[in-house]
């Protein structure tokens, strides 16, 4: 990040490469539209680039990054609740000029893929329906590099409150997914 502050674009590209998946995991499971999640992830990194001169290495970079991601996600969720029909950006915006290219990750057979896909849909639905702070706490908890203390910093609450949010989120998911977990896990 210090290299990015000195205007090293190659270092910034490395950062994007390193953190694109964790950021997308958070946004994809927080927003109902994959395309909007992707556009928002792009906005997150552009914001990181623009804010780089203000970054101080007192906190971990990932904590700072996820704080930006969470704030932008919250803004988008609020905007959606006010204007439910409007997309994040106009369809003809410059961000849509480059076509999206997705790698094919399918490895299982068709039946296994179908069952796993169905289970994932149920889990993702259940996660998306959680209150925002519980959902974000749960999703950040899946990031290996973030400690509970880091998650508390991103959420702006105490350590015990963070653990409580994660616990409540898991209890809700267990209750809602009980039939699927027994057969699918």
């Amino acid at each position, binding site marked *: 990040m210090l290299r990015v502050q000195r205007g090293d*674009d190659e270092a910034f590209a490395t950062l994007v490469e390193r953190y694109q998946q964790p950021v997308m995991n958070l946004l*994809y499971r927080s927003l109902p539209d994959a395309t909007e999640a992707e556009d928002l992830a792009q906005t997150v990194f552009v914001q990181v680039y623009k804010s780089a001169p203000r970054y101080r290495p007192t906190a971990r970079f990932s904590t700072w990054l996820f704080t930006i991601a969470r704030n932008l996600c919250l803004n988008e969720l609020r905007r959606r609740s006010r204007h439910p029909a409007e997309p994040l950006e106009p369809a003809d915006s410059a961000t849509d000029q480059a076509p999206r290219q997705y790698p094919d990750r399918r490895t299982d057979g068709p039946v296994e893929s179908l069952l796993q896909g169905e289970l994932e849909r149920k889990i993702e639905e259940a996660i998306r329906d959680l209150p925002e702070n519980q959902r974000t706490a749960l999703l950040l908890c899946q990031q290996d590099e973030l400690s509970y203390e880091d998650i508390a910093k991103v959420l702006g609450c105490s350590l015990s409150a963070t653990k409580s949010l994660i616990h409540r989120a898991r209890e809700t998911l267990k209750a809602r997914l009980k039939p699927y977990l027994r057969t699918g896990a």
Partner: protein
Amino acid sequence: MTTSNDSHWQEIVARRPMTDREQRELAAWLAKHPESAEHWAGELALTEALRKLSPAPVPSNFVARVMAEVRRSEPAPRRSRPLAGWRWWTDWHHALPLGAALAALALTLAIQAHHRAQLRVEVAEGLSALPLEGLAQLPFWQDLEPIQALPEGPLPSGRDLLAALE
């Protein structure tokens, strides 16, 4: 397992699958506490299900798109940066003409100040040459209008001034 151990293990399963050793310890404990078996089965199943979630789809050209967007939006902040603080001073495009104007202004002021100082010295020298004993009785000291009526431009010499006043 104590309550603190239970809490510790809860934190572990919330983040990752248990290691083999942790699983063995848990199984040994559950053998003695079968009433908790259902709770822990749910916990472990949820952890496993969350772990198996596919990563969110990321376009293979995502980095390139971010970099393109960064470059596209880059000129705006850079253009506004020079006026934001004193950094514009380092930009010679702005500093050179401004510096030249400031130098010209300073030179003009210095020349004017020097000219006034010279004039003051000349007048002082002229006045010091006057016969001071006669000067005190002159009636013009009661009326300053003659002095105010002196012409504009270079001051006359001391003797001319005295002749004019008399």
